[in-house]
């Protein structure tokens, strides 16, 4: 068994964020020997900035398999959360009461309806129920809903969790499972060897039999070293956090949710700003206005924190799961919904990695799709 002292491990997972940690946890549950290589305290760290949705409702236009994978993850999440609570005592605060996508005008209503109908009409799309709630429905659920709210789309499969608690639970599990966690070990180079790989990090050299690259934006740089192409780019999201409140909002909304601590988080922006993480006043204002239209009483509540963070986006917005042909034993995994897919990453993807073979369901997520141009819809 590898310890912090030994330099060799069976599985090296590059990246200690939501994707890497869920995979490492899953591998350890398969009795694999794992070391996680993570950057230090100050890095892009998308996982610490995540909104926290476990979201099914909008996923998969252009790739029905993504909707299938997402739904599977949402289902696995229960078992995933229960396992973490049992073994670590840390509760990721999963709640799946169903989720709302609020609509603030007749035009939004019409566009949403058209989108969802088109989404669900795709051949091979998983059959799960959804519906459009009108204002009357919403007002009976939430009397405080704003006068401009015309309705919402809803599916019972949506929910949310606490991304920071999840990370903490996973890292606590590492200690119990014997997963070696190496912070301040940004990986400079992955070197394929005759057998396995050498990982060059923090001025030292480690070796492993298999490597899983789950390093967020660094995937683009690292993956080619093992013969993989993972073309990801940053896209900024911005979040406003409001002070703690007594519970008033049970259902997560795409743009607004109340956490287990009672704080309220507001999202959802997509800003093309390269690697600049600073918040933009125009974006913040727009986010705030939408939130106030949703629940006017929030106008009085105070914002205590705001941040910008970089999503990791593939060219079509869908996850990339890759297996190197040139260097068997090298894999890569990336997505922008690290919380939603954590269940699947830990309980479905990790066993596949342990078996050293991604199964046929993962083929649509292969980065070959960018080369072939099949189903390539720019996101």
């Amino acid at each position, binding site marked *: 068994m590898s310890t912090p002292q030994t330099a060799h491990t069976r599985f090296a997972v590059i990246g200690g964020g939501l994707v890497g940690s869920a995979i490492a946890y899953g591998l350890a549950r398969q009795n694999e020997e794992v070391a996680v290589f*993570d950057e*230090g*305290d*100050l890095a892009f*760290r998308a996982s*610490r900035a995540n909104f926290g949705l476990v979201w099914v409702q909008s996923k998969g236009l252009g790739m029905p398999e993504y909707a299938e994978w997402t739904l599977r993850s949402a289902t696995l999440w229960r078992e995933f959360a229960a396992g973490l609570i049992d073994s670590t005592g840390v509760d990721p605060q999963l709640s799946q009461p169903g989720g709302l*996508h609020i*609509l*603030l005008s007749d*035009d*939004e*209503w019409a*566009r*949403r309806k058209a*989108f969802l109908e088109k989404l669900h009409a795709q051949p091979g799309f998983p059959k799960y129920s959804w519906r459009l709630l009108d204002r009357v429905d919403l007002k009976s659920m939430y009397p405080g809903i704003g006068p401009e709210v015309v309705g919402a789309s809803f599916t019972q499969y949506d929910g949310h969790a606490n991304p*920071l608690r999840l*990370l*903490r639970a996973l*890292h*606590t599990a*590492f*200690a119990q499972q014997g997963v070696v*966690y190496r*912070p*301040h070990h940004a990986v400079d180079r992955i070197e394929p060897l005759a057998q396995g790989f050498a990982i060059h990090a923090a001025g030292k050299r480690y070796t492993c039999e298999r490597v899983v690259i789950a390093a967020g934006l660094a995937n683009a740089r690292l993956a080619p070293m093992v013969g993989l192409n993972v073309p990801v780019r940053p896209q900024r999201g*911005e979040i*406003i956090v*409001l*002070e703690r409140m007594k519970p008033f909002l049970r259902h997560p909304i795409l*743009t607004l949710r109340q956490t287990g*601590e009672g704080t309220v988080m*507001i999202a*959802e*922006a*997509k*800003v093309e700003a390269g690697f600049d993480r*600073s*918040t*933009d*006043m*125009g*974006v*913040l*204002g*727009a*986010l*705030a*206005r*939408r*939130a*106030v239209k949703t629940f006017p009483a*929030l*106008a*009085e*509540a*105070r*914002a*205590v*924190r*705001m941040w910008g963070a970089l999503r990791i986006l593939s060219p079509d917005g869908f996850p990339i799961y890759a297996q190197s042909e040139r260097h068997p034993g090298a894999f890569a995994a990336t997505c922008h919904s690290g919380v939603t897919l954590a269940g699947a990453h830990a309980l479905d993807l990790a066993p596949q990695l342990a078996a050293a073979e991604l199964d046929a369901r993962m083929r649509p997520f292969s980065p070959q799709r960018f080369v072939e141009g099949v189903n390539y819809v720019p996101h």
Partner: protein
Amino acid sequence: MKTEPHIETHYDALVVGAGPAGMSAASALAENGLRVGVIDEQIAPGGQIYRAVGASPLPSRAILGDDYWHGETLLQRFIASKAGYLAQTTVWQIDRVGESWRMAVSAAGESRLLSAAHVVLATGAQERPVPVPGWTLPGVMTVGATQVLLKTTGAVPQGATVLAGCGPLLWLYAAQVLRAGGRIDALLDTTPRTQRRAAMKHLFDFLRSDYLVKGVSLLMEVKRRIKVISGVTSFRATGIDAADAVEYTRDDGTHGRLPVDTLLIHQGVVPNVNLSNALGCEHEWNDAQCCWQPKLDAWLHSSQPGVFIAGDGSGIGGARAAEAQGELAALQIAHLAGASDAAARDATASAVRARIARALRGRAFFETMYRPADAMRIPGGDTLVCRCEEVTAQQIVDAAQLGCSGPNQLKAFLRCGMGPCQGRMCGLTACELLARESGTPMRELGYYTLRFPTKPLTLAEIAALPATEEGEKAIVTA
């Protein structure tokens, strides 16, 4: 094409804070013909050290002492300079737009946007947190807090009152209270005796400084009239819903217990770094004073273009140094704005630098002597480190043992530093605990990455920001 929100008012310079550094910087800039605005959270200028100097209820100057009343001179100059003054106004975000800084400020529940080519941060210092068991009980306050009470209302403690801690402010406040007829039952001095010896190597400068006569006479005044218990190595406040006693141990192994209605604690002051941190200025760890301070050049210019930091916020130097530093920053800004040439600037600057040097002379002596003891900075067990989120020292130690690699990961794991005070009460303590557990020196460990808003503001205010094309396009609707 990115459209900018309408900027309401343009300034040559914006100064944040109206203590000695802020007042003198703004006065000097205005006198040089620059358009300057001062943003102040308080209702009147003076900062903390000269709090209420313009509206004091204490007509007898002997109580607070001459050092305090020097603030009147600064205030008069500030008023005469006609620098813009925005009272009860809080800065909540500063960002860069082109070659200027854009500042979002909030007053009376409404936000406005200001812009300036140059910014002077003069937000001063705050009391160092004193994480002892029971420090969150009602009835336990900082000495700085009660000095504010004295300055603004002439109020003095009544009931059983004990001072505990280390540093010149304890003695100053005790003297002021006694002069005003207030009650202090005891002063628990936690100054480690070994530090007196270490301080001796700075004795010469102290003897030559302005602090000697004041310092010694103050100490004598207080020791004559109240019970001073020295060599205190630890203390705790006890009580259920309010403090009712303070228990202490001494370096000779003895213990004591004193009933209290009010326990006033102090372990020195540290720079306020929330705004400079959120702005992205580089900071460095000052090991002698156990605090973070911004990295500045010889003109007090930070690592961010056009941002100057003067006063205790640049490093603890006291009120006279702060005043001169404000002048220094103003000299450079006036030069950059074209109001003076380099020769004129340099001629004045040398005198200002001499004033700073004189003000700082002698401080090394009492800084060395009054450096807070390790036990006072780094608690253990169930003692609360993060007051807002109620995170204990033991929880931080446990997280460190899990491999928590830095203060931001700590924040993510424990919510330590995520409460309304944004790490002001817990940051230093949490970092020092983490540093000790992980064997990483503070200068490498770093600090929380602080975010805007530096003070909370309502969602309504954010919603009232002018709409931009980019903002409207960026948010997800249907």
